[in-house]
Structures are given as structure tokens and as C-alpha cells.
């Protein structure tokens, strides 16, 4: 699997198929049983702790829950990576944080605590924090799950705009077909830990295989059967009687 620079690459597949695990492998939070992972030429699963942390400074990650630090305000959450990894003055950090918050439309929410934010706002703050250090790539873990249509639209637009404006490589894991296909340049469809198909959204829509078509169109029956494997119904009922 190759993730091109400067593009929005989506990894789609049903729940429990290993999408989040893949992001954790790329971020070095998990070690693969086999295979190799390279990010910007660096062999992630062979890096020592120090080198891995250096690499992570150039990666951003948006977690499904936002993963904001609950004891810090919105402002302090976005300032956190800057305070940890740079020696910038507080006045410079303030300017940078306000610019990042402005980019996600939440400059006015800087004094709120994470508990006061809606789910969509929390993800936007997490996005501002993820881009605080101007990373070369951002990984999005199910960015649209549980969002109302407006928040979803905002996130879709933000991900695309940030990718294009900052020339970031975006890797997005999702099973929200419509939103993902709308902004992705390239899509990998995976199932049970394996790549089933890949291509541009248009290619997958028009030439995708049976499994991909079922997934994209949300068909209840197909290669992924509606029924969980079981004995014949008549036999089962007979056994009960």
C-alpha cells in the first residue's frame, strides 16, 4: 500500500476490519507481526524511541474521540504541542494558536473547556492541535462518525482545504462512503486486514468489484452475507420442537 504525498488518501472498509490498527501501525503505536512500514523514507517499525518521537513531531493525528486533554482549555490544548516541542515565546505561541483556531473556525471558543464543546467542535479543535506543528502528514481516524450534517460538511471542507493549502499528505480512515468519496483522491478498500481494491473514487464507483459495490452502495446482501453462518433454519426449528 502506497500513500502518495500531498493527496487525500482514504482507507475504507467495514467496522473491525483493521483500519484504526493500520493508523496505529503507521504512527508506530503498534508493532507489525510481519511487513515493513516506511514514512518519509524512515522505517517506522525499526526506529528507536527517540527517532520515532522525532518522526511523530512531523505527523498529526485526529482521533475518533478528539482526544483533547480534558483539564486544559481549547487554547491550551492547541498550544500544547508548541509548548512541548518549541522554544517559542508565549506571545508567538498565542498568535500561532489563534491562527490555527481561526483556520478551523473556533477562535471564539478558545476559552472553553473540552466538556463544553460539541462533538464536531471537539474534532475541529483536535484538528487545529494536529496542525499546530505544521506536520507533513495527518492521519484522520473516522473523522465523520457521529457528526450531524453541518459538522460533517464543515469537516469535509476543512480536511480538503487544509490538505491543499498546506500541502499536507492526508490519510483518512472511514466508513462514511459519501463524504469520503467526495474528497479523496485515492481510495483503498480493505476487508479482514487485506486490500480488496484501490482506485480513484470514480474508478471504484464505475469499475469496482462486487464486494466494493456492495460496500459503496450499502447493499444488505451480497459477498458479505446478511445472515451469519448457521445451520439450516428448518433443522434448527426442528431441533427446538
Amino acid at each position, binding site marked *: 500500500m502506497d500513500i502518495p504525498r500531498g493527496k487525500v488518501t482514504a482507507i475504507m472498509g467495514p467496522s473491525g476490519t483493521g483500519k484504526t490498527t493500520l493508523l496505529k501501525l503507521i504512527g508506530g503505536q503498534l508493532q507489525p507481526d510481519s511487513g515493513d512500514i516506511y514514512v518519509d523514507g524512515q522505517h517506522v517499525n525499526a526506529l528507536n524511541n527517540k527517532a520515532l518521537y522525532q518522526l511523530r513531531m512531523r505527523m498529526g493525528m485526529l482521533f475518533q*474521540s478528539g482526544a483533547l*486533554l480534558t483539564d486544559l482549555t481549547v487554547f491550551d490544548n492547541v498550544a500544547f504541542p508548541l509548548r512541548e516541542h518549541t522554544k517559542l515565546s508565549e506571545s508567538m505561541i498565542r498568535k500561532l494558536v489563534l491562527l490555527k483556531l481561526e483556520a478551523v473556525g473556533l477562535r471564539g471558543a478558545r476559552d472553553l473547556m473540552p466538556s463544553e464543546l460539541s462533538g464536531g467542535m471537539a474534532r475541529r479543535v483536535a484538528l487545529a492541535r494536529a496542525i499546530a506543528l505544521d506536520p507533513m502528514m495527518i492521519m484522520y481516524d473516522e473523522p465523520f462518525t457521529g457528526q450531524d450534517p453541518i459538522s460533517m460538511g464543515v469537516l469535509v471542507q476543512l480536511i480538503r482545504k487544509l490538505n491543499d493549502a498546506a500541502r499536507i499528505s492526508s490519510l483518512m480512515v472511514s466508513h462514511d462512503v459519501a463524504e469520503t468519496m467526495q474528497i479523496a483522491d485515492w481510495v483503498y478498500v480493505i476487508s479482514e486486514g487485506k486490500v480488496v481494491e484501490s482506485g480513484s473514487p470514480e474508478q471504484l464507483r464505475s469499475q469496482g468489484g462486487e464486494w466494493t459495490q456492495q460496500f459503496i452502495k450499502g447493499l444488505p446482501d451480497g459477498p458479505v452475507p446478511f445472515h451469519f453462518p448457521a445451520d439450516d433454519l428448518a433443522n434448527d426449528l426442528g431441533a427446538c420442537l
Partner: protein
Amino acid sequence: MITRVLAQLGSVGVSALSSIGRAHLLILNMLAGLNDIIRRPRLLIDQLYSVGVLTILIIAVAGLFVGMVLGLQGYYILSRFGGETALGLMVAASLVRELGPVLTALLFAGRAGSALTAEIGLMKATEQLSGLEMMAVDPKHRVLSPRFFAGLISVPLLAAMFSCLGIFGGWLVGGGMLGVDQAAFWNGMQGGIDFSDDLVNGFIKSVVFGFVCTWIAIYQGYDCIPTSEGVSRATTRTVVHSSLAVLGLDFVLTALMFG
């Protein structure tokens, strides 16, 4: 049948050993985090407040009442032999040697230890610890280490406070209510309590208990299953394991110190 029982025993043994291994790796990582704390003492100060200062009330109230009960019980027993003048010594020795460190550690495990486990467990469940890792910040150094050192520092101070208030409570009852001679109460204490045998040994106990209780609390939070049930079970384990560890270690330490 026998094979299955053996397999289950083996599985429990492997799981217990691997848990002990993880706990030891964690403590090494937390001790290595001391550098970060020296660079940024604010991290420790914040935790000293939430782990130590917020536990003062329960320690103060418990210490006072334990001392008052000791004064009452001690008076009734000692007065049978005409030895009520030794009440001060009895109250102080009981508190400094045993009750101060042990009860403080038990109360600390119930108040601060459970809170530490729940907080860290919830941070894990809400991906805050993973988020820190992905921001290239080691949560063991940034989050766990300050909490560990705060617990280590707080417990001996809280134990000292418990003993002081307990002695005060004993004096209130003995000297104030029951009419024990005040000079005898304080002189007996002054003459009978030895600095190295009593105070230093009591201090060593409270340091050991602080180390163990905080270690258990942090490990249970960090190692818990990140669900509401997992955090709840980890919190219960913290209180149970800490209490048993304190009581068991108290016997061992007492045997070594006074045996």
C-alpha cells in the same frame, strides 16, 4: 480434566507474571521521568495539590478521631493499673509506629489512589494517552511520573499530619476530658519516644507505603481495559491491592524494625 485445570493454572500464572513485568517496566519509566519533573516542577506541584492537599481533610478528621479513641481506650485500660500517666506515651507510640503510617496509607489508597486510577483509566479510554504519544510526548513521563512522585512525597507528610492530629486528639480526651496530668502526658511522650526507633521507622514505613500505593494506583489505571467496566474494576483493584499490600508490608517492616 486435569490437563484443562493445569492449562488454566498456567494461563493465570503467565498472566500474573506478565502483569508483574509490566508493572516493573512502568515504575522504571516513571522513575526515569524525574528529569522532566526537575525541568518543569509545575507538573509536580499541580499533582501535589490534587493528590496530597485534597486528601488533607479526610486525614485530619480521621487522625483526630483515632487519637481521641486511643485516648479513651488507653485511659480505661491504663487506669486499672494506675498507669494513666503513660497515656501520652501510649497514644504517641501507637500513632507514630503503626496507626499513622498504616491508616494514612489505607485512606490515601481509598481517596487519592482510586482517583488516580480512575483519572488515568479514563485518559486511556478517551485516547488522551494515545494522543500524547502521537504528539511525541511520552505519557509515562508527562502524566504518570508527576503523579507518582506526588504520591511518594504526600504520604509521609500526610502520615506526619495524621500522627500530630492523633496526639492532639488523645490529649483532648486524656488531658481535657478525663483529667490526666498534663505534665505527665507530655513528659511520658517526650521520654518514651525515640527519634530513630520510632520517628524514623514510622517515616520509612510511610515512604514505603506511599511508593507502593501510588505505584499500584497508577499501574492499574494505565493497564486497565479502556471501557467503563474496565476502569471500574481497576479502581476496585487499586483499593483492594493497596490495602492488602500495606497490611502485609506493615507486618514485614515491623518485624524487621522492631523484631
